[in-house]
């Protein structure tokens, strides 16, 4: 019997490989067609993670690197759910984030931007979703930063997010943007996504209900992974 596969990825919704306004894609984009595979055991399985892999503090970017005090910047909570296309929460899956600090500077030996490093901010965090797919991080709102593409390109404030799901074919890296940021519409990386509704799906709204009064603001961000077919009609071998 064949395992139930995942819904095919919508390649008209996802960004194409070649997006000339994002110049680095030009020499790095495959030009030949992808080979479409029905899911085998190699695609519908994937790594699993547990609470021995990570520590409770790992999702608190305000504290997980701090030594002499809190990092500088706007304190925020980022929370939401990891769901699949059927609307079901994805339980116990690993969510990892990374971001620039409030000055728009990354703690990376290759980042040489003028913005100051913050001695109390590392810029990465990780957590497991709960049984309903919920996750939460506490962090600092990242700053915008310039990047070499056109001479005057600036990234909107964003948090990079990596999610696993239950299968290697669900593996996804995306970026979360912040409601109201005027740089979103001008960003060549955002605009690799052809469908405006797909861009809207990456913009987190301010969530005052989740803010902690006199402490930090909150943004809500749900992430959707590919859904899986039901097994009901899967056991009919194809013609070969």
């Amino acid at each position, binding site marked *: 019997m064949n395992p139930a596969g995942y*819904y095919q990825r919508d390649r008209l919704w996802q960004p194409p490989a070649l997006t000339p306004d994002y110049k680095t894609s030009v020499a790095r984009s495959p030009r030949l067609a992808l080979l479409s595979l029905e899911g085998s055991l190699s695609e519908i*399985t994937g790594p699993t993670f547990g609470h021995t892999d990570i520590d409770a503090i790992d999702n608190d970017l305000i504290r997980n690197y701090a030594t002499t005090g809190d990092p500088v910047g706007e304190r925020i909570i980022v929370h939401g759910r990891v769901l699949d*296309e059927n609307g079901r929460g994805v339980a116990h899956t690993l969510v990892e984030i990374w971001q620039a600090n409030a000055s728009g500077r990354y703690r990376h030996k*290759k980042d040489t931007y003028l913005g100051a490093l913050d001695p109390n901010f590392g810029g990465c965090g990780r957590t497991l979703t709960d049984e309903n797919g919920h996750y939460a991080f506490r962090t600092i709102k990242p700053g915008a930063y310039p990047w070499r593409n056109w001479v005057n390109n600036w990234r909107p404030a964003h948090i990079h997010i990596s999610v696993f799901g239950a299968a290697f074919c669900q593996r996804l890296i995306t970026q979360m943007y912040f409601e109201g940021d005027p740089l979103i519409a001008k960003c060549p990386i955002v605009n690799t996504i052809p469908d405006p509704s797909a*861009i809207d799906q990456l913009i987190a709204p301010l969530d005052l209900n989740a803010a902690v009064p006199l402490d930090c603001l909150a943004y809500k961000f749900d992430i959707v992974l590919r859904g899986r077919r039901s097994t009901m009609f899967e056991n009919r071998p194809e013609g070969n």
Partner: protein
Amino acid sequence: MAQPLTYSKESASQTAGPYVHIGLAPGAAGFDIYRQELGRDIAGPDAPGERIQVEGVVFDGTGAPVKDVLLEAWQADAAGIYPHPEDPRQAHCAPGFRGWGRIITDFETGIWAFDTIKPGSVMGRNGRPMAPHISLWIVARGLNIGLHTRMYFDDEDNHADPVINLIEHVDRRATLIARKTAAGQYRFDIRLQGDGETVFLDV
């Protein structure tokens, strides 16, 4: 008017960018923050099987090495069993075998390498066994969505593999096959574009 379909859409992918290491391998970005980084050891110390090392470079369309790429590997143990509940033989998977790893390049040369054990054959669809292979997922600056591919071994019998045989352009099949360079050593280069473009998979 028909009834509305209520499926959600998969979140759109965005490039991992040049600083992906901060999130997925902060040691490579230049700082220590976690008690343990994930994905450092694919097989674990106790898994039976042939210990191997795979080395390679990812090249762009101009032939230049992609120095800021990050790869993830996913594979079965030496008996062809995945440590995952969907594998019916999961209970017999090698002790301590994780099957998953993260692979970082040398930032100066773009060369990457990883140690693991050679996977066994895994049953494919419709009862057709697949030759031993490692699934790879590739992200980098300039890649808008992660690329999936597979690595097979040139000292295994790949001629009946159901995935390799799906590749109509027979000359391109070799792009998925690692070359044995010494005992326990394999070389696997990936070409994103141009001559010898690797076969990438829509899985």
